[in-house]
């Protein structure tokens, strides 16, 4: 079983629609990160959330950290084809080791 469970595994939507990706765990984390990975490239850090209940916005992307610091969500408003990619949540299990969820593959159709 994975430490971080992401859902859904795949998401295909039309341009202009909204979407939400979830990242859940039974463990409590001091912080949680979201990455986006495009084909042939490495993951790129989008955001780090550190406080329970925290909400961070990055243009049309909204990230929320659960009050208990066990879960997080990524919401994209008015998705565009450029938002297509693999979205990964990750958390540190010690000072240096990042544990990743399996990822959500998002496809935005024009």
């Amino acid at each position, binding site marked *: 079983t994975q430490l971080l469970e992401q859902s859904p595994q795949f998401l295909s939507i039309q341009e202009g629609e909204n979407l939400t990706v979830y990242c859940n765990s039974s463990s409590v984390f001091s912080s949680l990160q979201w990455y986006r990975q495009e084909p*042939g490239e*490495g993951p790129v850090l989008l955001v780090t959330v550190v406080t329970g209940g925290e909400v961070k916005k990055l243009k049309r992307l909204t990230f929320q950290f659960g009050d208990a610091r066990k879960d997080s969500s990524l919401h994209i408003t008015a998705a565009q084809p450029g938002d297509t990619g693999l979205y990964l949540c990750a958390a540190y299990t010690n000072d240096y080791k990042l544990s990743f969820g399996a990822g959500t593959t998002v496809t935005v159709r024009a």
Partner: protein
Amino acid sequence: GAGVSQSPSNKVTEKGKDVELRCDPISGHTALYWYRQSLGQGLEFLIYFQGNSAPDKSGLPSDRFSAERTGGSVSTLTIQRTQQEDSAVYLCASSPIRHEQFFGPGTRLTVL
């Protein structure tokens, strides 16, 4: 500035052969990490370097896998006697400070 680079970008090898994958971290980054990513999946931690030493090798799948880092810079991941289940994308990341990892584009390894 230059990011993390990895070479080769693609490697096709025959079962039983040895392969070497190279990672050039961002200059000045003391920490270096190797991960493995199977098709469409999340990343699996392999090994962590702080400087030239590897305090955590716990993620290496078997004794066929080894890695070294020289001069606090370049790192090489070696897989001996490759097997088909070793096929994956191998990603390297470097970090200057805690919680800020920068990833390279990866090496796609295919074992026939």
